């Protein structure tokens, strides 16, 4: 009844108008002048950062995510820090030494106070570490410190950490463990620490509007000196294109996770630039080789590596924003990287020969799982890999999985025999990659090699750096030859930056505002 007469009014004039209107919108959107970008941010020493998601908590011991780390690392300090080159340096701990293979002694600074006036001392260290390890607290960081058996307070500024077994990567683990004030946390409770954090860091907490913004102000009494940027705002802007628009409109100074195909717009503008840095995250296709099937044969796995051209995937799918892996699971920035390993390269003919040798001259079919939107262009990378494998007669059927389902399948060892994964390792030590992935019995280990198991166990308990490095070099040789992964690339982190901001991207994804400046 209602629509009986509607269509009689649709005239030719209307469709013409419609077309003109649409053209008009597109034209308006496509041109127009661009006034200076920086006029919008009023205060000169105010920095606005836009991330895709909000912090989940401001309690530094109860999370395991980069966006939260970016906020809390400006409020709190840890015992040790990493400089821009990835070297571990003293921070709240002035020095670190080994009393014996099981005992680390830390000498703490004696001139540091929390923002509420509470002194930082040995008790803060003991309290924080116990807090992370306490099973009651369910801290996602507990696993990182599980080697610590006991914390011994020698005096106000000296602490000893006693480990169950020799634990050479302890300093790397202490880098991300931020110190909380014991009295404040005990008296006010963990909820208060999470919503009104008190640290020793360069910035004090001001306010937090959930899913909107977190405001921090400079801690003028900071022990490393007065921060030059006086106010920091972390905004939450989930949509990539909107984040870029915020930067272009001059409303924010720094944005994270710029998609590769949108980086060019920011580079060509005089008001903005792009900062790229090789991240600690590697992208690869893991093979399930510890179960019977074609992938149990190392020749097949080698063939898959020869059939995939990582460089062309980087060029075509990632617009050049990646670095090919060198036939081993860690990047050259990681301790344990073996420069002598010769990556197999791209050789489809050799791949076909190897497959034929293994009895698959007529090809084979494999399933592959990939997440969608978790890593830079992950689904597209997986499709490119599948396409290249097709060329040598490996028929891949790709399952694109929602992240929750994807994780659950890996956790329950129900994953497809090929699975595209990204693995971040910000300890800069091979152990945090190769142990979970290649030590039999570990959660992500879909590979079986008794020799590798032995070497990995040895490396874990070797305190001598050089000997440990040699052990990992051996591991990398074996892995390169045995090819448990299809080695793809190291991901690039891409940031959009306002020209008025003096800041350099770090390989560990952190945004240290203390080191930045506004021009």
């Amino acid at each position, binding site marked *: 009844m*209602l629509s*009986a*007469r*509607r269509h009689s*009014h*649709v*005239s030719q*004039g*209307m469709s013409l*108008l*419609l077309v003109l*209107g*649409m053209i008009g*919108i597109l034209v*308006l*959107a496509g*041109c*127009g*002048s*661009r*006034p200076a970008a920086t006029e*919008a941010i009023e205060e000169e020493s105010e920095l606005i950062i836009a991330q895709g*998601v909000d912090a*989940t*908590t401001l309690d530094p011991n*109860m999370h*395991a995510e980069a966006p939260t780390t970016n906020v809390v690392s400006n409020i709190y300090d840890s015992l040790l820090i990493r400089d821009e080159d990835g070297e571990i340096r003293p921070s709240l701990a002035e020095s670190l030494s080994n009393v014996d293979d099981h005992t680390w002694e830390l000498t703490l600074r004696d001139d540091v106070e929390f923002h509420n006036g509470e002194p930082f001392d040995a008790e803060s260290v003991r309290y924080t570490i116990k807090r992370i390890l306490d*099973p009651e607290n*369910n801290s*996602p960081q*507990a*696993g990182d410190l599980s080697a610590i058996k006991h914390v011994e307070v020698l005096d106000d500024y000296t602490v000893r950490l006693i480990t169950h077994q020799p634990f050479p990567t302890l300093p790397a683990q202490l880098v991300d463990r931020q110190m909380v004030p014991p009295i404040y946390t005990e008296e006010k409770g963990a*909820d208060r620490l999470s919503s009104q954090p008190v640290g020793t860091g360069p910035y004090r907490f001001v306010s937090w*509007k*959930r*899913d*909107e*913004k977190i405001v921090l102000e400079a801690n003028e009494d900071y022990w490393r000196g007065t921060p030059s940027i006086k106010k920091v705002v972390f*905004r*939450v*802007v*989930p*949509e990539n*294109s*909107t984040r870029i*628009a*915020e930067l*272009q*409109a001059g*409303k924010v100074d720094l944005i994270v996770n710029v998609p590769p195909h949108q980086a060019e717009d920011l580079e060509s503008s005089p008001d903005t630039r792009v900062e790229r840095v090789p991240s600690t995250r590697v992208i690869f296709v893991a093979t399930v080789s510890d179960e019977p099937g074609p992938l149990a044969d190392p020749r097949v796995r080698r063939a898959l590596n020869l059939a995939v051209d990582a460089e062309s995937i980087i060029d075509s799918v990632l617009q050049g924003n990646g670095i090919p892996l060198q036939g081993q699971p860690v990047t050259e920035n990681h301790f344990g990287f073996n420069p002598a390993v010769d990556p197999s390269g791209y050789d489809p003919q050799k791949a076909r020969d190897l497959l034929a040798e293994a009895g698959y001259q007529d090809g084979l079919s494999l399933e592959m799982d990939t997440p969608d939107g978790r890593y830079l262009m992950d689904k597209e990378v997986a499709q490119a890999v599948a396409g290249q494998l097709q060329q040598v007669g490996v028929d891949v059927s790709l399952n694109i999985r929602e*992240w*929750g*389902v994807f*994780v*659950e399948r*890996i956790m*329950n060892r129900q994953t497809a025999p090929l699975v595209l994964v990204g693995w971040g390792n910000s300890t800069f030590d091979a152990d945090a990659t190769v142990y*979970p992935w290649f030590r039999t019995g570990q*959660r*992500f280990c879909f590979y079986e090699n008794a020799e590798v198991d032995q070497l990995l166990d040895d490396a874990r308990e070797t305190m001598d750096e050089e000997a440990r490095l040699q052990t990992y070099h051996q591991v990398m040789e074996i892995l390169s030859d045995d090819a448990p992964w299809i080695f793809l690339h190291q991901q690039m982190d891409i940031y959009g930056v306002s020209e008025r901001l003096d800041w350099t991207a770090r390989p560990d994804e952190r945004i240290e505002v203390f080191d930045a400046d506004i021009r």
Partner: protein
Amino acid sequence: MTRYMLRRLSHSVFILVGISLVTFLLVHLSGDPASLYLPLDASPEDVEAVRASLGLDRPLHRQYLEFVRGAVRGDFGISLRHREPALNLVIQRLPATLQLAVAGMGVAVLTAIPLGVVAAVRRESPVSTLASVAGLLGQSMPVFWLGLLLILLLSVKMRLLPPSGRGGISHLIMPAVTIGTYSMAMVMRLMRSAVLDVLGRDFIRTARSKGLPERLVIYRHALRNALIPVVTVTGLQFGVLLGGAVITETVFSWPGLGRLLIQAFNNRDMPTIQAAVFVMAVMIVAVNLITDLAYSHLDPTVRFG
């Protein structure tokens, strides 16, 4: 009237119980939150411990009863991700979503009704053509695309409005237009055809032949009758707006319920999903109830008893 209201209220309670059951089942069947709650390298023992501490190791019907017992008291449990009572998280974000939905509705109704009436009364005028174009574009443009286009045009190129975030009125304009456009188109087309329909009826001819001025004919007789279907649809559009809020809130970084819900789904944060869906359901049921009452008020032939 009171009996009618009581009956409608009891229907609403049934609907809410049904929604809670369906949400509960869907969320529990869609996967195990424990594996997402911990970092990827957590041990299987850790995962088991978390499952136990969240009560996920108990049989499903016991978990549901537990959930209902809490929900009745307003306790939906602690958010797995935020470690805060889930209902608090929802209530914190409710004002932003309501503001957006009401502003969107305002934009929709305030433009759709006059435009629809004029388009019906002056059928050959440019306004009518404009209305048809707006109706077609409004209903066919994806919300996502419209939002980004507005940002590019009004924020990046012309620097008139802030691209995203919540703040003053200037922050509200683009999200409200974006979320209201679909409903605007819908309501306007309906308004136009309803007025056209009413204008052809006998009582309008009678009114005109009485010598009533055309303005009075339109306002007093035609409009009131044409509004009846429009009110119903507008009420239903409120639900559409709350659903559309998920996309609009993401595009415009609007800190509302829609975004909370999306994140909660991605993290299998069951308490938060349940609390958010429940609160949204309550709002939609309430708006439908109000619409029905308004309907019976506008149309004297609708009387329930």
